[in-house]
């Protein structure tokens, strides 16, 4: 079970958090302008990398804030934690 360093609360057990899938997928500003394929790309396509992955997490049983982490999925090492809207540090 991971220890996750919530940017607002500090280090907490993974059981306090909820994973929210791949990070940095921006909701299109003008969905109506998109073709079916383009909309499907946003809606359905997600990466599943062995290695460095950018993920959204929510401190659901804590401050309820969303934030991003950089995780190496091959060994679960969390390389960095950063707030929503911030650029990934690595």
């Amino acid at each position, binding site marked *: 079970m991971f220890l996750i360093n919530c940017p607002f609360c500090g280090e907490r057990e993974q059981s306090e958090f909820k994973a929210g899938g791949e990070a940095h997928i921006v*909701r*299109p500003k003008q969905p*109506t302008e998109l073709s*079916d394929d383009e909309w499907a790309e946003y*809606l359905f396509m997600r990466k599943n990398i062995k290695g460095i992955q950018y993920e959204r997490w929510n401190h659901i049983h804590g401050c309820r804030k*969303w934030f991003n982490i950089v995780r190496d999925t091959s060994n679960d090492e969390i390389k960095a934690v950063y707030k929503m809207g911030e650029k990934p540090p690595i």
Partner: protein
Amino acid sequence: MKKKLRVKRSKHIDETYKISFKFNGKLYYGFKGDTLASALLANDIHLVGRSFKYHRPRGIMTAGSEEPNAIVQLHNNSAWTEPNVRATEVEIYEGLEASSQNCWPSVNFDVGGINNFLSPLLPAGFYYKTFMWPASFWKKYEYFIRKSAGLGKSPTKADPDIYEHRYIHCDVLVIGAGISGIISAKTAAKNGFKTLLVDEKPYLGGSTIYQNSEYFKINNQNSGSWLEKEINEIKKIENLEIKTRTSVAAYHGYNYLLARENLTDHLPIERRKNKTRHKLLKIRAKKVVTATGSIERPLIFDNNDRPGILLSSAIKKYADLFGVACGEKNILFTNNDSAYETAISLIQKGINVGAIVDNREKVDSKLIYEVEKNNVKIFKGHTIVNTYGYKRINKISIMQLSKDGQNVIGSKIDLSCDCLGISGGWTPAVHLFTQSGGKLKFRDEDQVFIPNIYPSDQISVGACNGDLTLDSILVNVPKSLKDFLNIKNNVYENFDVLSSHNNFKRNIWLLPSNKVLGKTKSFVDYQNDATAKDIKLALREGFKSIEHVKRYTTTGMGTDQGKLGNMHALGIISETSEAKMGELGTTTFRPPYTPLTFGTIVGRNVGEYFDAYRKTPIHEWHVKNRAKFENVGQWKRAWYYPKNNENMFQAVQRESKAARESAGILDASTLGKIDIQGTDASEFLNRVYTNAWSKLQIGKCRYGLMLNEDGMVYDDGVTTRLGENHYLMTTTTGGAANVLGKLEDYLQTEWPELDVYLTSVTDHLATISVCGPNSKKIISEIFPSLDLSDKNFPHMSFKKTKIGKIHCRIMRISFTGEQSYEINVQANFGKSVWEKCMEVGKNYNITPYGTETMHLLRAEKGFIIVGQDTDATMTPIDLQMDWIVSKKKYDFIGKRSLYRSDTIREDRKQLVGLLTDNPNEILEEGSQIVSDINKSPIEMLGHVTSSYFSPNLKKSIALGVVKGGKNMLGQKLIIPMENKKINVTVTDPVFLDKENKRLNA
């Protein structure tokens, strides 16, 4: 003649404390300190079980948690019964009852033993191939196979014991209290680390603690006495917590470990009352030192599984620690020096050692010279080719090995014995290390896997790290601790060590035989009866990956996870397929290391604590008025209120009628309520609901439908505009938490520029819904100053008012199609306001109704319930709710998905009404809907989602989803049931009051 097998006093055994216990119904005696296995051996009992597949007689094989054979059931047929317990780990207590489990009718006469003679029919892949047997053949044997196979009986009574969970945080966790663990714990604790030391056994010191040999010394004392002093010393260290009988079950990432602390299993049952049996320790350690030691390997030769064949190290332990001789005529068979340590121990205690068979030709070893001095015959360069004795070994045959070790030569020599110790060298216990994600490397010189890459802040020390001799442990452990803990001074300096082991081992994975392989039974996995022949067969049949061979032969898939034989399986695969050991990989060891009982995992979360449940502020009233409850999420909701001897159907019919004819009252407090404030609140609602919100006036309510981005209906509810920048949203009971989470997600991540704040107020407010033609009269009596005229207080609007000092929000909204008012008050006033409604409503026969009647009433009106009439595949268009989807709004969540090629298909499942030809026939919810019953395969058009008998319409009504249903009005369809088919007609989903006249009646 009774054998004298209790040989010499051992400090561990209290011979003044006699304990009686039963094994297979017969009474025996042992002493305090005995395990079930040691006590049985002292009573000359080796045969304790039958093997899983061939039902061969099996005996105690080891003296620890790695035991594959001596698996017993404790206290059969009682609430305390427990299957799959290793006799080698059970500490005996007065009144202990154990029985063999994998045998029927008894361990001495076992029907399944016939499988042994049928074994050519039961090759590798037996369980897979079984399904290819002719069906008639299978049926015949099924009864017996079921009865005689299986691993123990699961308890049928409730578990009487108490279990707990405990969190532990420490700087350093040391797993294993053998010599390496003791050194590690002392080093860590003395350097100021908050340290926890755990060991699965009831005593500390591992296998060194009973080492009493002149050939193994530390600082001039024999190693056992040296360690005893160390143990006495560390017990005084304050920042060191020591837990025995504590087995680490799982090693997860980020140094999170689960361990089971066993507190009462060694006590007589009457002394366990009101005590916690097991504690599941959830340990988060900054650093972990694994010192789990090593497990002796067996040797693989023909008939290597008879009762009376034990690991050589187990024979030594039984003699040294328990003072028990496993036999009167012992022979040892080895490929390394360890068996000579056993021989020396036995000789010291006056236990006969008949001979030692050593597969090595020439070895220069002090231990061998010592054994030879005692006139023990040593057969060097020999191997065992067969053993004899059905229920107990009585003879072995040995032959000389060829130079390359691939064949046997010369003639057979027979040696008689009643016990055989085997030693194939040692396997580092790397199970926990690999569980943690660690990567192993193969050490060629002695054919062992040792830790290589650590995935977290941890280290393996001692035998589990490949330091298999006393001198290497004492040199390497302090050194690696110094680096690992980053300390300046070692607690231990410059040991003076005497270690007389010669490390040379002659490793032959499968020993040659004078028979062809097909005729031998050389067991690799004892518990699952996998032989060398099976593994070779699997390779011949094309299996290459170790994981596939494992599953096909079931090697390593028993409750012991193949702790003894996995290495040999790998070795045989490697030799046969000519692949290098290091490149084959190993199978994965899964948690738990030894089995855990469910109680330990569940802890205190049993009975009423199994899951938290939520009660509304009015709950006690419902209980008092004999409501039946239904679980909705974690809520307990009043389901219906039976009167006299009514059943559910009768109660619901009565409640439904009353609500439409006069007045009904519903506790709707469980509805999710979210308080929304902020200058962008209206814009926010515009984006999350399908309809438009900007123009909703203050004091008005509106129904909204919420979609996922994929266009599917997610939740619904009425939202009220309380003020310019203030809304109260309601959600479905089950969806409340998810809706709040989803809205927060959008606010925080997609639209952080919006000025909106969300607060869950579900628990803050009690919600009472009064409906029916007389509801207006009741409300006006409760709130005399309120103008309830349709002009002042129309449908879909809201008023603030008071009862005495209690603030109330009243919404005129309806989920039943009747005129209806929802009173929201602060939760703690909920019950008294409800009682007020009941009191005032008495004159109007106000009838409390539950969720079932609520569902019926809304179905009459064709209102959907999200999650019942919808699943995650229904769009608003599919629900015939096009009216609620704004065409003007540029965007809202899910909008773009409503015109994807898939969502605009005409033949999607769509919500329709269904009427049965026979108005008294009530459909079963979930039934399939078809049109052509003769077609094969029958095409499933959809299913029934809601179905009731409507007392107000006096006929059965149903909602369902049907492919292309929108265009099927009036069409006949069929609901096929088990023994009949029901004819239905597709209708509009609104059955009652299509013009909504009743809302304003």
